């Protein structure tokens, strides 16, 4: 069998995987109940089944109807943007807003096409001033500004 439409092939596979996962997990762990008194497994199991079925249909389409290839994944921006956000979350409490914002700005700036230290540093300063004035002073969000160890 030949894959004529890679986009549909992978999309179909994704839907089948999600559908089967939700159905099987629901059936294994939760009670089904009846149509009158639906248990916690009822709705997800039915929906998951439907999703897997549609995924299968998309898979079948992908071997019969030809379509475009999947565009190349750009891992550099993908990974750096995601990493920047996660790092922001986990540095906020120990290090405070000023440093966490730095982590996010610098990591995500590495994900772009060009990285100039001067520009990014300037952007960082502007964003920090803005964040502190608007979010912390203006809107009184309860963010720590500086690292905990410094006693602020």
């Amino acid at each position: 069998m030949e894959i004529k439409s890679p986009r549909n092939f992978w999309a179909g596979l994704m839907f089948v995987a999600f559908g089967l996962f939700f159905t099987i997990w629901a059936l294994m762990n939760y009670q089904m109940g009846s149509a009158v008194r639906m248990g916690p497994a009822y709705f997800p199991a039915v929906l998951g089944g439907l999703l897997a079925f549609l995924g299968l249909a998309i898979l079948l389409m992908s071997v019969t109807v030809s379509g475009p290839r999947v565009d190349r994944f750009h891992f550099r921006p993908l990974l750096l943007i995601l990493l920047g956000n996660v790092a922001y979350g986990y540095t906020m409490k120990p290090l405070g807003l000023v440093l966490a914002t730095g982590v996010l700005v610098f990591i995500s700036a590495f994900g772009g096409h060009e990285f100039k230290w001067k520009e990014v540093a300037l952007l960082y300063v502007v964003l920090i001033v803005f964040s502190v004035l608007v979010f912390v002073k203006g809107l009184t969000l309860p963010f720590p500004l500086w690292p905990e160890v410094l006693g602020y």
Partner: protein
Amino acid sequence: MDVFDNLMLGFSVAITPMHLLYALIGCLLGTMIGVLPGVGPVATIAMLLPITFNLQPVAALIMLAGIYYGSQYGGSTTAILVNLPGETSSVVTCLDGYQMARQGRAGPALAISAIGSFFAGCVATLIIAIAAPPLAEVALKFGPSEYFSLMVLGLVAATVLAHGSLIKAIAMVLLGLLLGLIGTDVNSGVLRFTFGIPELSDGIGFVVVAMGMFGLAEIIANLELKGSREVFTGKVKSLMPTKEDFKRAWPAVLRGTALGSFLGILPGGGSILAAFGSYTVEKKVSKHPEQFGKGAIEGVAGPESANNAGAQTSFIPMLTLGIPGNAVMALMIGALMIQGIAPGPQVMSEKPDLFWGLIASMWIGNAMLVVLNLPLIGLWIKLLTVPYRYLYPSILVFMAVGVFSLSNNPFDLVVMAVFGLLGYICTKLECEPAPMILGFILGPLMEENLRRAMLLSRGDPTVFFTKPISAGFITASIILLVIVALPALRKKRQEVFVEET
């Protein structure tokens, strides 16, 4: 007259200096994010949601609503000047608006789109004022089966407006419904799909999902593209459209307003569907269809009026039924709930000042936008010349602040990153995130109403077809699906979407 009295009450609320100020802030903020490609009203409202906690309910809603319709105005500016949709609903405006700009007629294009939007906004506000009370009356009689069927209709409508394959859009809706079920099951108290992670017991926050799927995924996708934008800065000289322009634009504005108002009311409809629909209609009725795509003013006037009308009337299902028709309305419901107001048909009778104040503020906001937008056009153009390498880290910072402030928990950022990844994969596989988001919002509501309906009918599923209102919704859904699946129309639909790219 009732409508008149109610509107007077609304204006007396909306005209207070405080509320005028919040309307102005909302409109300006909305225009700004509308102008900037890659920042949508969903991300902005989501960011401001935790902040509205400190505001009065009326002020909070007035500001958030201003952001939404302000972004419709701003989006068209970018579409016309840069050929990029500043806002998804202005995708269609790029087609002819940008061509007009290239011919040196950016001014008239901007003016017509602002005037058209204003006219549409006025009419749509009036429609809300007239249509909402009787609809809320009907909605009070809705039982679980009616609500369930109505949501089915909404989800079907959402798949219709998705680009590309219908079957993939339906699959995305199902995926959204399933992801919406994560968390504690309200009926049994069982934790579903939480995998022992305590943060998941309350479910995944909608804001986090929306920011990941729309915000992060879009930024990552934008970073793939190289190349500069061409901004027609110097060419916005005379704003005044000619007499000929007006003559050609007026009928388009009228048709766009009518179509947009109608499509906006449908759950799952809203401004995007309205804009596409209007462009197709304009091309069909025009005596010069060959001019479309080459700078036809009707191609700007119609869709721009339609998307603003649709944006406005999409408040109707939210205000009268408590059902969010799109992601922005879901956030509005979130804002109501933060204020301790349960959304639904009772809002109108219990909080008339809020309901009518919001409606009156929409008209005021539209007037502000048309007055402010044109003189400020120079400022918005400046904003557009800011390179993306400055813009995207700033957007990321605002998003991260917004998500973190939801519960001060780093786990929310992890979830956002996961949905950013999913969103990126979906873009690559041509699966639209919009239907998924709507499914995600409606998932728990649908399950709840399905359960109640089945309990009441003692397990008889025909109840959805025997009750007249419910049967009407189901029939409408089926008709809609058949229409889209029909080969002739599918071809037409593809044509519209192909043109857009």
